[in-house]
């Protein structure tokens, strides 16, 4: 029997929300890792019970957690009995949080324009590979891409990205210099798209060895050269798996679209009340139906006029309609962060988002109406929907 599992990362722990296919009644478990920041959790498409989680703390650093039973139990990879001693009898394991940059890390641009050393801080996003349950990518701050091929026990950097000759010109956004989005082309898994705040979007066509910035058409007025090759604060990119050459982007300001795998972009914000925002996502069955949550401005990270609204375009941008049924339409001043929106693949498509006020809203009719699944979690950092078989 199918159902939905929502993986919700918050400022103070992880929560797992489950429902049957009707998506009316939800069971909430958690907090897992209580008191820790859970930046992101994501399940494998190869095995729906394999879930990776990024657990972090300003005091104690980065932890990677893994579940092999759908989020009921968790462990740090590489610390099981079988992992603790190597063939020579020497202890090993405990490397699942060892994210060391390849070679001498070098420097990037700091807030004041000076050069600053690359320093690992945390994992923002975990993206399981599409064909191997033990292969998973990690997008980290300071921006870099890592991968593990042993279920998260050990990580190595795909350093061609960070060592791109534009690296010294990348700079942190307000939330840090994070690699927050990883999209793997299901038709060609050597093609991967990533997005970095504030460097922009990048693409590899050779499995991560070499990368190119794909920011042509982006205009960011805060930059000395608004159309520069890098430096853009891309908040999120998304595509439909059946049409991976069409990318959608929520930039700091502007909603953008590319029909050539990111080689060029055009703005599709049109009638949005504000084109600032963080998440963007695509309907599971309609590649031209996309969703954003407009936020008032980069200085005021809350909805316009205190009304929480999702906007939907059924034309891949430009013609937008507002979705408000079931969402608070007064006195609402929460934010919706970049990794906090997700869709399921049931019919009709379900769509979910979490807020910094601790609400997780869900729609089982592609956004026409909404319900609060939970209202009082800690601030939500990420939401991932799994459609259970």
């Amino acid at each position: 029997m199918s159902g939905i599992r929502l993986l919700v990362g918050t400022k103070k722990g992880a929560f797992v929300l489950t429902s049957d296919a009707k998506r009316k009644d939800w069971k909430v478990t958690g907090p897992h890792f209580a008191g820790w920041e859970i930046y992101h959790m994501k399940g494998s498409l190869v095995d729906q019970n394999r879930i990776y989680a990024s657990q972090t703390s300003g005091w104690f650093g980065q932890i990677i957690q893994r579940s092999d039973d759908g989020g009921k139990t968790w462990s740090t990879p590489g610390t099981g009995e079988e992992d603790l001693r190597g063939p020579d009898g020497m202890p090993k394991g405990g490397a699942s949080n060892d994210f060391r940059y390849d070679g001498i890390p070098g420097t990037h641009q700091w807030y004041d324009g000076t050069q600053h050393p690359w320093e690992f801080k945390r994992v923002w996003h975990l993206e399981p590979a599409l064909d191997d349950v033990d292969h998973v990518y990690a997008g980290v701050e300071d921006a870099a891409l890592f991968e593990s091929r042993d279920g998260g026990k050990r990580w190595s950097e795909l350093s061609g990205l960070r060592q791109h000759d534009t690296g010294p010109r990348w700079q942190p956004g307000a939330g840090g210099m994070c690699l927050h989005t990883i999209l793997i082309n299901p038709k060609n898994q050597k093609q991967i798209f990533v997005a970095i705040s504030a460097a922009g979007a990048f693409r590899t066509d050779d499995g991560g060895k070499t990368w190119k910035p794909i920011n042509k058409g982006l205009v960011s007025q805060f930059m000395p050269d608004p159309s520069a090759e890098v430096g853009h604060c891309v908040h999120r990119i998304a595509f439909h798996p059946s049409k991976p050459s069409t990318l959608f982007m929520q930039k700091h300001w502007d909603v953008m679209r590319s029909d050539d795998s990111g080689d060029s972009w055009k703005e599709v914000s049109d009638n949005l009340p504000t084109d600032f925002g963080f998440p963007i996502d695509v309907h599971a069955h309609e590649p031209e139906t996309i969703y954003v949550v407009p936020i008032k401005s980069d200085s005021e990270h809350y909805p316009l006029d205190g009304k929480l609204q999702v906007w939907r375009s059924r034309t891949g941008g430009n013609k937008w309609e507002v979705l408000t049924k079931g969402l608070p339409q007064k006195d609402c001043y929460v934010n919706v962060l970049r990794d906090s929106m997700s869709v399921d693949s049931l019919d009709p498509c379900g769509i979910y988002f979490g807020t910094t006020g601790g609400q997780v809203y869900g729609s089982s009719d592609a956004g026409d109406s909404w319900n609060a699944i939970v209202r009082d979690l800690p601030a939500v950092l990420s939401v991932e929907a799994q459609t259970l078989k």
Partner: protein
Amino acid sequence: MIRVILPHHLRTLAKVGDEVHVDLNGSATVKSLLDALEQKYPMLRGTIREHGTLKRRSLVRFFVCGEDISHESPDAPLPDAIVKGEEPFFVMGAIAGG
């Protein structure tokens, strides 16, 4: 046997109670103690000391017998009271934030 008291978040990470016990072979120093602690609980690697450099993480503090020894050499001998298990070795998260 050395008694070690971890901060709450590291206890939940290592799935241990209020106090853990560590046996040392040879000299008793902060370094040898943390080496043994991480060997027994490998999930703690990188949480108290950084990987590679083994530098104490900046918001972690070590207390013994009422004294903050965080800035002392990791190779300095631990007091007899710690070595004999009369007093615990405290790993603490520094007070920061609101």
